């Protein structure tokens, strides 16, 4: 802003903006290097053009197309995974409504049998959307819940089955094994299932999200990301590095706590928001 020419200060300012949006030092440095190269190659002279050029470069990494949910089945089986408190259960409520609004018959599975009142929480989302929740007791084997839910989904002719799982830190190998088992049981009953493993990432998370994506990816073969809590001041820039390194697409974003607060991911909108200065207006 206010730069007369394209100089080091301007590049540094852009790098800072990236870092403040949680893009991370390494990715930010690489992006700025790419930007310098493009500026040269295209003979760009106007400082005002740099931001849009940078946005274009990031857009190229993220992909301009919105990536749809994988289909399969029926039922198409969607497993929702992630660390504690990122918004898995809430996302399931919204996703159920999204599928419903596209004319699909949905069933939910209360696969978090660990956290206090997690089953009750999902049941409230079931009530809000008028969707049946298959559940066992607290403490039950999540793989058994998934198995029963898949049977129920088949016998009821559901198009989509969405399975909640307990939050877990990606570094806890016993808990990651438990998650793998859920996937194995589903795959044995219905070849190709789960068709979609959605990793929920909280936009307020910083560089640790890379580690989350890596380890959940290794354990469960994550097929897409849902980036939640983008209604706050966080930008979620870490997904750029995740796309670059691990090639996992973001499929949806969460922008609130209500049933309609889920949107398909659009790289263009996301990238534009990366550079706006919302965070300056606090209470």
């Amino acid at each position, binding site marked *: 802003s206010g730069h007369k020419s394209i100089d080091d200060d301007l590049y540094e300012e852009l790098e*800072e903006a990236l*870092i*403040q*949006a*949680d893009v*991370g*030092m*390494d990715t930010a440095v690489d992006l700025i290097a790419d930007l310098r190269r493009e500026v040269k190659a295209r003979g760009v002279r106007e400082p005002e053009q740099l931001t849009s050029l940078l946005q274009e470069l990031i857009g190229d990494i993220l992909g301009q197309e919105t990536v749809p949910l994988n289909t399969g089945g029926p039922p198409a089986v969607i497993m929702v995974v992630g*660390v*504690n*408190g*990122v*918004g898995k259960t809430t996302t399931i409520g919204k996703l159920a409504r999204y599928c419903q609004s596209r004319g699909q018959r949905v069933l939910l599975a209360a696969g978090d049998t*660990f*956290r*206090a*009142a*997690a089953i*009750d*929480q999902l*049941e*409230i*989302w079931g009530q809000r959307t008028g969707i049946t929740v298959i559940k066992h007791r607290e403490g039950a084997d999540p793989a058994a819940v998934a198995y029963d839910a898949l049977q129920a989904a088949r016998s009821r002719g559901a198009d989509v089955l969405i399975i909640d799982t307990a*939050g877990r*830190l*990606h*570094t*806890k190998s016993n808990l990651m094994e438990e998650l793998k088992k859920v996937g194995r049981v589903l795959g044995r009953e219905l070849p190709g299932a789960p068709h979609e493993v959605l990793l929920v990432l*909280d936009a*307020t*998370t*910083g*560089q*640790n*999200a*890379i*580690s989350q994506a*890596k380890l959940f990816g290794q354990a469960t073969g994550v097929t897409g990301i849902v980036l939640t*809590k983008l*209604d*706050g*001041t*966080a930008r979620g820039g*870490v997904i750029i590095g995740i796309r670059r390194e691990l090639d996992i697409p973001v499929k949806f974003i969460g922008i609130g*706590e209500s049933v309609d607060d889920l949107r398909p991911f659009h790289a263009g909108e996301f990238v534009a928001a990366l550079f706006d200065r*919302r*965070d300056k*207006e*606090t*209470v």
Partner: protein
Amino acid sequence: MVFSGLAEKLQETFRRLKGKGRLTEADVDEAMKEVKRALLGADVNFQVVKKFVQRVKERAIGQDILDSLTPGQQVIKIVRDELAALMGGTQSKINVSPKPPTLVMLVGLHGAGKTTSAAKLANTLRKTGRRPLLVAGDVYRPAAIKQLQVLGQQLDVPVFSMGDRQSPVDIARAAVEHAVGTGRDLVIIDTAGRLQIDQEMMDELAAIKAAVHPHEILLVVDAMTGQVAVNVAEAFNSRLGLDGVILTKLDGDARGGAALSMKAVTGCPVKFAGVGEKLDALEPFHPDRMADRILGM
């Protein structure tokens, strides 16, 4: 571990510094670049990093340590000491009111760990002889009340609830009366997750504060939080006046850079660290250990 490559690099830099008999300003600059990278990789706030590196540089160059016998070691020591200092001394105590009950209120963003930490705190403080009452002040999140009730049951600690049709302000007020009537000397109020830019929801917290005057308002912060941590702490602090911070989910591989800025921004220390989902997984916070962790040492 995600940052282990960086940690190695940093240690290599420090080893190199240690190995040198004599350091130039350029050596220090080079080392500071690595430190900056490490801190940003640990999600320390960008502005904080800038100022921090500047200060360390000034100290390193200003104190004639470049001419000392072990300049490298001294630079490392400055970095670690400054980090620990930034996070404040060890202070994990809760302000106890001379006139019971002591009121503690937990606030923070969605999913940070408030409800779980409320139960953990009740568990911890009960072991010091307190008689806690947990208060279900989140009337918004689906099954938030039930969650606290289940946790209370696990601990055999009473949970005060008026359902989800009353205002959290009225609930807090009634809870304090209930505590007085039943001889509870510690009231821990759980509140709903909220965005720091949500004016209406922030007003609600201010109204609870005005109604019951908590002795201790604790901000619960997820250790994996990125660059917004500072902004969030600033907003909660300026609206409510915080007394401390609980840093959660430190049982993973989070470097916890968010911890670093909390003291600087709010003026109050991180008092506890959450290190697991179980109700005994709450520990006093140690700035020096945190400094090592942030640096990957």
